[in-house]
């Protein structure tokens, strides 16, 4: 099975994150940039399917030159090769523009199965799998906590707001996964060494037949008009429990009219 895993480089969600003051895009320069955590689960799932059914795993990333580091890290877990769509004109792309580019790149790769994280920790927008499915005319099985592959038939178990759904579709398809699906492996030393020499193809917009005015700021369908840091929360009153902590807590709740 030919599997493509979508990998996005994001600012570390465990550290302070900012928008750039000039163009209101994610400030990558001041951030510690890492693989989007949920994508590691997507990589793991792809590798498990390859191990069980054979095939090839390709990492696909759209991002600036600096994303190369995350691509190599992804490859060190075990995928065979990577494609990096990289073009200065992509800066400022909205979700729709991004989906146009990724769909075009997927078109060149002929994947049977595309796997992505359910969301990225920076935008948390959750729209990409459905946008890609819509553009490519393939099935989207989203929010998987379990994926079963049987030939060309896919079965996904997904948590919903109201319970659990089991859904099925045939390949080609895109599956997005939550962190409940598996436990990602750590790259081995051998994996890290091999990652350095695995094929990494860089594609430009021209390679994909997309013109610069369709993407980036020029083609964006949404805009950020203003962004402000919210003042950090201030801690309030704190009491040591010396036998009356529970009562003090309820007194506070009562003073705020919660009880």
């Amino acid at each position: 099975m030919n599997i493509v895993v979508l990998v996005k480089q994001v600012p570390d969600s465990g550290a302070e994150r900012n928008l750039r003051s000039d163009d209101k895009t994610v400030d990558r320069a001041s951030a510690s940039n890492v693989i989007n955590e949920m994508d590691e689960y997507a990589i793991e799932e792809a590798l498990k399917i390859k191990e069980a059914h054979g095939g090839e795993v390709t990492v696909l990333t759209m991002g600036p030159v600096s994303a190369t580091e995350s691509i190599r890290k992804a490859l060190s877990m075990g995928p065979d090769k990577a494609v990096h769509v990289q073009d200065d004109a992509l800066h400022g792309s909205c979700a729709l523009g991004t989906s146009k580019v990724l769909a075009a790149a997927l078109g060149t790769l002929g994947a049977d199965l595309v796997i992505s994280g359910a969301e990225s920790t920076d935008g948390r927008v959750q729209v990409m799998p459905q946008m890609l499915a819509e553009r490519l005319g393939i099935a989207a099985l989203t929010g998987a906590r379990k994926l079963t592959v049987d030939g060309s038939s896919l079965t996904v178990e997904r948590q919903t707001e109201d319970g659990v759904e089991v859904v099925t579709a045939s390949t080609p398809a895109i599956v997005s996964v939550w962190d409940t699906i598996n436990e990602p492996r750590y790259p081995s030393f051998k994996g890290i060494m091999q990652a350095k020499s695995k094929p990494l193809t860089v594609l430009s917009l021209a390679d994909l037949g997309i013109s610069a005015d369709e993407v980036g700021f020029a083609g964006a369908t949404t805009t950020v008009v203003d962004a402000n840091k919210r003042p950090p929360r201030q801690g309030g009153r704190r009491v040591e429990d010396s036998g009356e902590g529970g009562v003090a807590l309820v007194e506070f709740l009562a003073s705020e009219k919660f009880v």
Partner: protein
Amino acid sequence: MSDVLVVVEHAGGAAKKVTLEMLTLARDLGTPAAVVFGAPGTAAALSDKLGEYGAAKVYVAESDDIAGHLVAPKAAVLARLITTAQPSAVLLGSTQEGKEIAARVAVKLDNGVLTDVLSLDADGTATQAIFAGTTIVKSQVTRGLPLATVRPNSLTPTPSPVTPAVETIDATVDDSAKLVKVVERRTEQKGSRPELTEASIVVSGGRGVGSADNFKLVEEFADLLGAAVGASRAATDSGFYPHQFQVGQTGKTVSPQLYIALGISGAIQHRAGMQTSKTIVAVNKDSEAPIFELADFGVVGDLFKVVPQAAEEVRKRR
């Protein structure tokens, strides 16, 4: 005034709270027109409630294809309705399903989409809280109409009764929208507890709760306050509580009036999901726990002593 389409979120024959919030928001933007998707017979139970919150129209799209497949049929019908009804804005819930329908509609109509919107002004400017609520952003759709998903619990729903005109719309879709079949749907019993993202009070437990068994203490205190129960990632990863109740960067984002954190240290991962709560209360035995930096009121102590005492005190005051 032109129509503002509101895609109805419902479960078990009742409109979800986010639907009533969206109708309330839509009244400030134009004339609310609700869109109900579901199996045949779904809308009948919902129309009165939608009218109570100001839906002048209820568009009904019912079919087994809609109920039996993931979001693609809903997106196909909604895109068609947008084209014919020419609304001034379209609102969906910022839930997984709402975002996914919006995603497909955005592609079909080449229309920008904004997610996790807290409010939307009449001029189409949306407010969003990003990076775990640390940055407030004003944004706009610059191609097409304002297509936005609204985060649950962002505003207080208020009634404004009208008698809605109910209109059945064509719900047929072609095979390209039927690629993903739902073969099984198991509704989980939540009992009488409110839904996590909609609750006005959330009581969450963390690693400090210690075991699945001990989570009963969290549940009992939540029930006493009419609250939803949440859990930190440490607690769900340890198997103390089911994953779908996880609050945090990789779980649910909640923004209740009151958030009570029991035995939760307050790692950034957790804060990302709860720090926009109006009031935060924490109980933790570690006085250095970062959760106290956010808490409006904190008790440094053993939650197994503090919580039962607090429960007793609540009962006493009734």
